[in-house]
């Protein structure tokens, strides 16, 4: 079943075409990676799908519903969650509270004005759980401003998970996360419901090949290749513009 | 036994110069009397009101009455501040002398309020009559858009049209106007023969008079009919721009009388930079009124007796003869037509006509 369908998406900044007629579909439970040279338009594509950027033309369907004109919060409400390439955390709010906020948002209690937030024990327990899964319990009560960068990246992922996504777009989630911890992220992703579709943008080919069932290669805003990891690895053009000698991995 | 007098005024903020005028006026009188009224030591307690700030002033007045136990209150520059203390004064029977606030409706607010300043009605009605007598038919009014300005505008319009003149345009200028050229241009374009103005002292008066000259109103022969604009506090700042401007007012530092000379002497003794104008004379006379009340009550706190004692009281003030109207408790006084002239190095308001004793026309309607 197709959960996300992107059709003929375009975007230009001034004269620069950054997304060039991109079309692809994502099925429930699929694990896909998007790779491509720096500045190929990967982040821009995620921004368009997430609704942060308006597309110049093209359509986006989420679970069969046309969401092209929807504002981003509405897309989030329907299970389309993304993370940011460069951390966007509230620097002075403890991690646990930030995760709790995401859960409140998800279950609709974020606007409650009368009950003490500490009284929502289920929410707090869930938040603690999510952080523990990413081995973040030790910094749960720290705020991002006083965390190492790697920890911040993990908190960002915790936030995405707390929203219980149906489609999860991860923009270089492992950037700044050491290998050892990267495994944690992969483990956490493995534990996600089987019908969750995950798209990951990543430059670390080890991780990409370990994770993805399918790889989409972007170059100059356009889809250069779309196929299984093996196909991509063997693709001569991809090797030239992106992989370089690492293709031997 | 000391008699305590609380003086409320703006001692800080944009109107702080009023505070200094009050202080110099009041203390010069007290010094002149050797620090005692009718043998009683006088202690003045100052309280800062800032600008128009009724709730703060009410607090200050309440503390003066309740914890400092003052026998008299004085001061007050702004009408809303006066309005705020009125109920308190009434309830505590504290005789209170308004040194400045100039709206007619103040004194009826409490039986214990006396006023030694003036009202806009009091000085405007005579100048409207004078304009009519000069054969002026068309006048434009230009006033600052706040209560005294509106009072002046109404007073002028009412009296001038009653006499058969025409007010061709009424301009209200926002209080925080910096550039008066547009108003000057409008006055010029209105075809009027004279302009009645009311502006609070300081920057607005300076700005308006500059615009009056720079935009050629003077050359066009449009007569300037003012009230407080040429007040001594700002007068020297105008320079030649002010020469020949006419205002109707109750006090000129150039008033030729012994009482005024004595006042000036007392002021010089008080401080080198002390300045005689309507605010300091208001304070000076205000202290004189308090002096009378202390005398009448022999230093005891008795509000009713004190107020009774000054109803109808007449004396020679630096401004000329003065009398407290027994009904309104407002000061009845001469209003003069003055013209700015050069006297040696300095500018003075020379009294060129005396309109005689005027009541507060605003209350006598």
């Amino acid at each position, binding site marked *: 079943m197709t959960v996300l369908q992107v059709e003929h998406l375009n975007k230009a*900044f001034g004269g620069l075409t950054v997304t060039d007629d991109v079309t692809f579909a994502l099925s429930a439970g699929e694990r896909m990676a998007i*790779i*491509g*040279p*720096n*500045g*190929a338009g*990967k*982040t821009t594509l995620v921004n368009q799908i997430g609704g942060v950027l308006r597309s110049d033309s093209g359509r986006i369907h989420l679970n069969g519903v046309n969401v092209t004109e929807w504002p981003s919060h509405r897309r989030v409400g329907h299970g389309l969650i993304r993370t940011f*390439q*460069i951390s966007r955390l509230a620097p002075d709010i403890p991690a646990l509270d930030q995760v709790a906020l995401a859960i409140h948002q998800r279950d609709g209690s974020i606007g409650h004005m009368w009950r003490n937030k500490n009284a929502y024990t289920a929410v707090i327990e869930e938040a603690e759980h999510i952080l523990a899964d990413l081995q973040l319990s030790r910094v749960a009560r720290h705020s991002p401003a*006083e*965390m*190492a*960068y*790697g*920890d911040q990246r993990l908190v960002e992922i915790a936030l995405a998970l707390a929203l219980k996504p149906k489609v999860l777009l991860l923009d*270089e989630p492992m*950037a*700044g*996360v*050491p*290998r*050892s*911890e*990267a*495994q944690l992220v992969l483990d956490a992703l493995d534990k996600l419901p089987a019908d969750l579709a995950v798209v990951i943008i990543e*430059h*670390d*080919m080890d991780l990409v090949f370990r994770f993805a069932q399918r790889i989409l290669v972007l170059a100059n805003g356009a889809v250069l290749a779309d196929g299984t990891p093996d196909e991509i690895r063997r693709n001569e053009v991809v090797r030239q*513009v*992106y*992989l*370089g*000698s*690492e293709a031997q991995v | 036994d000391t008699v305590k007098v609380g003086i409320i005024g703006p001692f800080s903020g944009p109107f702080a110069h009023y505070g200094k005028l009050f202080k110099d006026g009041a203390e010069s009188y007290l010094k002149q009397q050797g620090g005692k009224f009718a043998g009683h030591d006088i202690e003045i307690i100052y309280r800062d009101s800032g600008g128009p700030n009724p709730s703060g002033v009410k607090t200050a007045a309440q503390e003066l009455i309740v914890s400092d136990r003052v026998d008299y209150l004085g001061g007050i520059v702004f009408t809303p501040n006066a309005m705020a203390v009125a109920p308190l004064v009434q309830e505590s029977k504290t005789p209170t002398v308004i040194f400045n606030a100039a709206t007619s409706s103040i004194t009826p607010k409490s039986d214990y309020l006396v006023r030694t300043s003036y009202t806009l009605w009091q000085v405007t009605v005579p100048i409207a009559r004078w304009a009519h007598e000069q054969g002026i038919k068309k006048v434009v009014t230009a006033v600052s858009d706040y209560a005294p300005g509106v009072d002046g505008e109404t007073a002028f319009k009412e009296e001038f049209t009653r006499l058969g003149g025409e007010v061709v345009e009424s301009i209200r200028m926002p209080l925080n106007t910096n550039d008066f050229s547009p108003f000057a241009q409008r006055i010029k374009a209105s075809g009027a023969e004279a302009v009645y103005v009311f502006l609070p002292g300081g920057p607005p008066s300076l700005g308006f008079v500059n615009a009056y000259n720079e935009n050629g109103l003077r050359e066009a022969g449009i007569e300037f009919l003012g009230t407080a604009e040429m007040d001594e506090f700002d007068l020297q700042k105008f320079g030649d721009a002010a020469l020949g401007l006419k205002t109707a007012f109750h006090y000129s530092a150039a008033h030729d009388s012994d009482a005024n000379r004595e006042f000036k002497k007392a002021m010089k003794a008080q401080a080198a930079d002390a300045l005689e104008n309507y605010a300091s004379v208001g304070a000076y006379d205000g202290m004189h009124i308090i002096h009378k009340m202390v005398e009448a009550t022999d230093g005891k706190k008795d509000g009713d007796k004190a107020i009774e004692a000054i109803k109808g009281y007449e004396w020679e003030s630096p401004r000329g003869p003065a009398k407290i109207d027994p009904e309104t408790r407002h000061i009845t006084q001469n209003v003069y037509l003055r013209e700015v002239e050069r006297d040696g190095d300095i500018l003075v308001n020379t009294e060129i006509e005396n309109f005689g004793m005027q009541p507060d026309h605003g209350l006598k309607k």
Partner: protein
Amino acid sequence: MSMLLEVKALEAGYGPLTVLHEVSFSVAPGERVCLLGRNGVGKSTTLKSVMNLTQYRAGSVYWQGHDITRLSTVERARRGIGYVPQTRDVFPSLTVEENLIAGLRNRPRSEVQKAYELFPRLYERRNNGGQALSGGEQQMLSVARTLLGEPQLLLLDEPLEGLAPIICEELMHAFDKLSREQHVAIVLVEQKVQEALKFAQRALVLDHGAVVHESGTAELINNPTILDRYIAVAE
């Protein structure tokens, strides 16, 4: 041989928090050192401390034999220490070209060409605002900007992060050239342990803010205990 940089028993941190505990190491002119360790052990803090961007508690820092412990960040930069932070810190309100000019200090503007030669991509985007760059482009800009200051010692905090593999290769190549031809010393912090070990001559391993191991890289590659314990290389 006299050392270029010597850090002696440095204790440093942020506010009340002390992160580094008696860290000592030195770098010889033209030497290539890599700094390894898990998440949050203080690698970035070490580099920042060399730049005097943290608060010192004790210890000292020497540059070419002179005590620079009390010298400001600016002074250190001017004496020849270049720093590429982990967070890139591109100036968002400056264009790409202005960012590069900022790195030039007082040298002529024409020298920005050197940066464009290294990263042609930056030339294409030279009039872009700093905030409108892709992640990888920011990384290139940050590195290029620091190189324009012609440092004698280059502190690189995860410079390969977010770069396409092919660019990574080129960049490591460039660093290699820099150190060989211009004799620039390099301290490299990198998560890609293999790359780092391939590049450097000597490795320092950090844990909990202290140096727990120091050796030639070849030696470290053959020391699975250390690798496993402090760096946790998965493979």
